[in-house]
């Protein structure tokens, strides 16, 4: 498609129609994104998340302020930039959302099944987890992702995530790599990152959680994975499952060094 890269005005008359149409579509999409970026509704989710974080709730009537997100109890700033990571107290590798759930259970005394019963909001049914994830992620905005990959369990999670990334299954033979193995491709008009390419991964991995305009809410990385597997004709992925976290560890390795822009804004 070298023709499509020529300056529009000078060569417009010479361009075939399809090429022009595609270029116009792309230009409109860029303009739409710029307009949106000027007022991101994710701000409201961050604010609600902060209130929830500091509110005394649950059977223990405690707030989440003493939650240890990896940098010690009470430290929220910069914690998301070091996730996912191994946590000695749970003896597991955890991502942002599974760690928030751990704190809801241990500090506030909710049962695990209560803590995860509404991970993804629906119209008229907001999700506390989406708000909490927005708040914590927002506290690392502007920092560079530096997820550790040193503890044996982190290395193991990486290797498992790598296997899963290439694992083809189901009626459509899909794996993650079916859509995320090459740069510059699209599903319909949606561009797809090559997740093993640091350039692509750094730009995209650090944007979740993000406000999805088409869904009218913040969606998290857990939702992104759940939605990918939906499209891949797999069954519903369990929230904060080991496979989801392993995939995040795998992706984070390539995304490390990318600037945290979460909660970002998306179509």
């Amino acid at each position, binding site marked *: 498609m070298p023709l499509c890269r020529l300056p529009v005005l000078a060569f417009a008359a010479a361009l075939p*129609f*399809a090429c022009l*149409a*595609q270029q116009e*579509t792309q230009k409109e999409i860029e303009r739409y994104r710029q307009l949106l970026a000027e007022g991101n509704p994710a701000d409201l989710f961050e604010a609600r998340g902060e209130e929830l974080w500091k509110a005394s709730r649950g059977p223990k009537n405690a707030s989440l302020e003493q939650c240890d997100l990896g940098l010690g109890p009470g430290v929220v700033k910069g914690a998301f930039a070091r996730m996912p990571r191994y946590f000695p107290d749970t003896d597991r590798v955890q991502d942002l959302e599974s760690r928030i759930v751990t704190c809801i259970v241990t500090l506030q005394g909710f049962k695990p099944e209560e803590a995860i019963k509404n991970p993804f909001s629906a119209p008229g049914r907001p999700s506390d987890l989406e708000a909490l994830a927005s708040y914590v992620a927002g506290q690392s905005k502007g920092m560079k992702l530096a997820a550790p990959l040193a503890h*044996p369990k982190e*290395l*193991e999670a*990486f*290797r*498992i995530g*790598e*296997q*899963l990334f*290439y*694992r*083809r*299954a*189901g*009626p*459509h*033979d*899909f*794996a993650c*790599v*079916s*859509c995320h*193995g*090459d740069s*510059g*491709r*699209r*599903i*319909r*008009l*949606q561009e*797809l990152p090559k997740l093993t390419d640091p350039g692509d991964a750094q730009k995209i991995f650090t944007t979740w959680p993000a406000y999805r305009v088409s869904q009218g809410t913040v969606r998290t990385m857990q939702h992104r994975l759940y939605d990918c*597997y*939906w*499209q891949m*004709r*797999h*069954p*519903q*992925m*369990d929230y904060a*499952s*080991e*496979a*989801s976290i*392993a995939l995040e560890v795998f992706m984070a390795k390539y995304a490390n060094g990318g600037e945290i822009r979460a909660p970002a804004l998306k179509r």
Partner: protein
Amino acid sequence: MKRLTFIALAAFAGCASGPSDDEARQRAERVFRESFTHGNRQMAARVEQQDDVQALCTRYRNEPPRDLADRIEAAETADIRYPASGKFLGDWRQGERIAQDGYGLRFTDPDTKRPNGGGCYNCHRIAPAEISYGTLGPSLYRFGALRGAGEPVQRYVYGKIYDSQAFLACSNMPRFGHNGVLTEEQIAHLVALLLDPESPVNK
């Protein structure tokens, strides 16, 4: 295909850093089974058990060595079921609807009476009026005009949609006929979308 699996195993020795490939694979399979426990059990069973081709393409990350690729292509070719009627060309208008439609086999698609779609535009440019097309696959615009629409081309296109891996082992494209996603009749409609001189693809 048992033989294929054996050859693949022998080709993969251990690897550095963390668990070996074999160990990582076994643990990944366990983790996978434990991570899809709340959904539809039948769907879970279908993704837990990879068929031989899925397992091999996973293992070789879609780049099988030539001899293995030859075997996969031969085995998949032998599995293609061509229409009993001998008729490859259906109705391009119905083909266009199937190409647009992404319905089917997702866990939110409970209507088993509604036919599955092909979702072809997700990955391919096809008719020029649709500008919302994906680029994971090649453009199919003017497919018939460029390649002709005779019986050999009809047969090829039917076979490619039925089982893409008969022609390219570990292709990213779903095996729509082989895996029972689309019916023979639906595939014939898609063949017409690409090849019929009256189809907008070739106008």
